[in-house]
């Protein structure tokens, strides 16, 4: 299922017939992880992908980011094909703790900028700004091991933010955090999205998180992942976690669950139960 046809200038990234099949290990069958998937991502939108475990959500993100090649189909970012290389302008935040344990918070955030040859004055300006924005200014000289899981994830977001990406891909960035921290981190991400005017693609297994944060939500089938439905939330751009108390929020999560329930059972091996 694809979104409605949009003018090219409004499409920031798109996937056409994208499939990903992992070659089987010795004596094993290849794994058809994803697709075929068609999707147009609008410039500046917040798009979430939900689906059962192992449905290929992270594979979708990695193919879109150029971290792994599509077996078939094409990926386009800002009008250019993405071919197994992360294009300039894309920033990725991963689920795992990807901080550099041997660097301070400040140096972690400055890492990418220093590599790209930006002047030291500009590095200082952008890093200080990003750390302030992420509430990490007082921890600039701390090492990741001295921070909580949520703060470490904010360091990773700051490291991506300083590069001023136009398209931010978030791969279950709050997966390892407790429910309350996730709600608060959701607000952080919304703030980030509004400030940068970037397009955001969020991979998550949490329906409430997707419903709270996104303009559109793509619900994926069990493996091989395909989009079953794309839900428009209709939230205003200025929003925060208080929308979880609204009736519409319940309606969106209910609709997503209706779509995904059978797929989740299928992914757990209860296909027969689902059919009933």
């Amino acid at each position, binding site marked *: 299922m694809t979104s409605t046809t949009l003018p090219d200038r409004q499409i920031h990234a798109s996937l056409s017939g994208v499939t990903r099949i992992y070659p089987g290990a010795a004596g094993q069958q290849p794994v058809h992880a994803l697709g075929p998937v068609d999707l147009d991502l609008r410039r500046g939108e917040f798009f979430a992908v939900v689906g059962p475990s192992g449905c290929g959500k992270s594979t979708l993100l990695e193919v879109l*980011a150029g971290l792994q090649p599509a077996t078939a189909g094409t990926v386009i970012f800002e009008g250019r094909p993405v071919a197994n290389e*992360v294009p300039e302008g894309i*920033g990725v935040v*991963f689920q*795992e*703790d990807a901080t550099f*344990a*041997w660097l301070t918070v400040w140096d972690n955030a400055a890492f990418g900028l220093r590599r790209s040859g930006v002047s030291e004055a500009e590095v200082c300006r952008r890093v200080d700004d990003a750390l302030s924005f992420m509430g990490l200014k007082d921890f600039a000289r701390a*090492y990741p*091991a001295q921070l909580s899981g949520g703060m470490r994830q904010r360091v990773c977001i700051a490291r991506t933010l300083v590069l001023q990406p136009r398209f931010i891909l978030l791969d279950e960035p709050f997966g390892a955090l407790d429910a309350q921290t996730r709600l608060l981190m959701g607000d952080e991400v919304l703030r980030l999205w509004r400030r940068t005017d970037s397009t955001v693609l969020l991979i998550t297994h949490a329906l409430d998180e997707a419903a709270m944060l996104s303009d559109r939500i793509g619900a994926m089938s069990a493996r091989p992942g395909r989009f079953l439905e794309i839900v428009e939330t209709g939230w205003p751009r200025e929003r925060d976690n208080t929308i979880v108390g609204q009736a519409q929020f319940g309606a969106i999560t209910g609709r997503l669950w209706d779509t995904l329930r059978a797929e989740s059972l299928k992914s757990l091996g209860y296909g027969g139960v689902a059919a009933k």
Partner: protein
Amino acid sequence: MSRVGWIRLAVIGTAIGLLEISCRLGLIDHRVVIPPSEMVDALLRLLISGQVNDQIARTFGIVTATVLISVVLGFALGVVIHALPRLRETLDPFFATYYAVPIFIFYPVMIAIFGLSAIPILLMGVATALVAMIIATLNGLDRIPRILTKVARMHQMGRLSTTLRLKLPAAAPHLFTGVKLVVSYSFIAVIASEFILAPAGLGRIISDAYSDFDNRRMYALMLLLIVVATLVNMTLHTLDQRWAARRGLVKS
């Protein structure tokens, strides 16, 4: 200094004090052990006289060369073996049992091949220390978080840059453990080789002093070796603790 540090110092001080008193009161025969203060005095006189400076330089020179060769070669071999899983599979049993074999049995063979010189001693040192560095390198490379490779690709980093700026720092704690082991093993192997059979070196003159019942010289040089080995290892341990504390591996 921490409370534990003071306790540690007090224990060492008490042990040395007890030994001093026991020797001075004749509870321990002077022909067996001399008082620690006399060891210090003998060492200072020996160092000031310069009689053994060339021997000290020779021994510590061989230890330094052993450490450098073992670290560099061990790391390089570790990287190669890590990159070749089949080779690693073949070598794993050897690594697992390497230190169960008394490597010193090969010392006479080395002397037969290379003669009575510094080379067999250096080779014994490297043979003892090398595998520790290889194993530490393999452990370090195994434990590099896979996510770092993705982060590197996100930052458009090449293989060399990824290795130097991400993988090596990530593996550094394990590599440093290897370096610490190499230093310890190098000291042991070099001194022991010199002690068994060598034309010169601290181990040899300690052995000679022992044969000549020259306790002052023997204990003075033993003290020198203990002090140097302890200082080197304490420095490495302190560095290791500091880095580990930063990474949250131990409490500082």
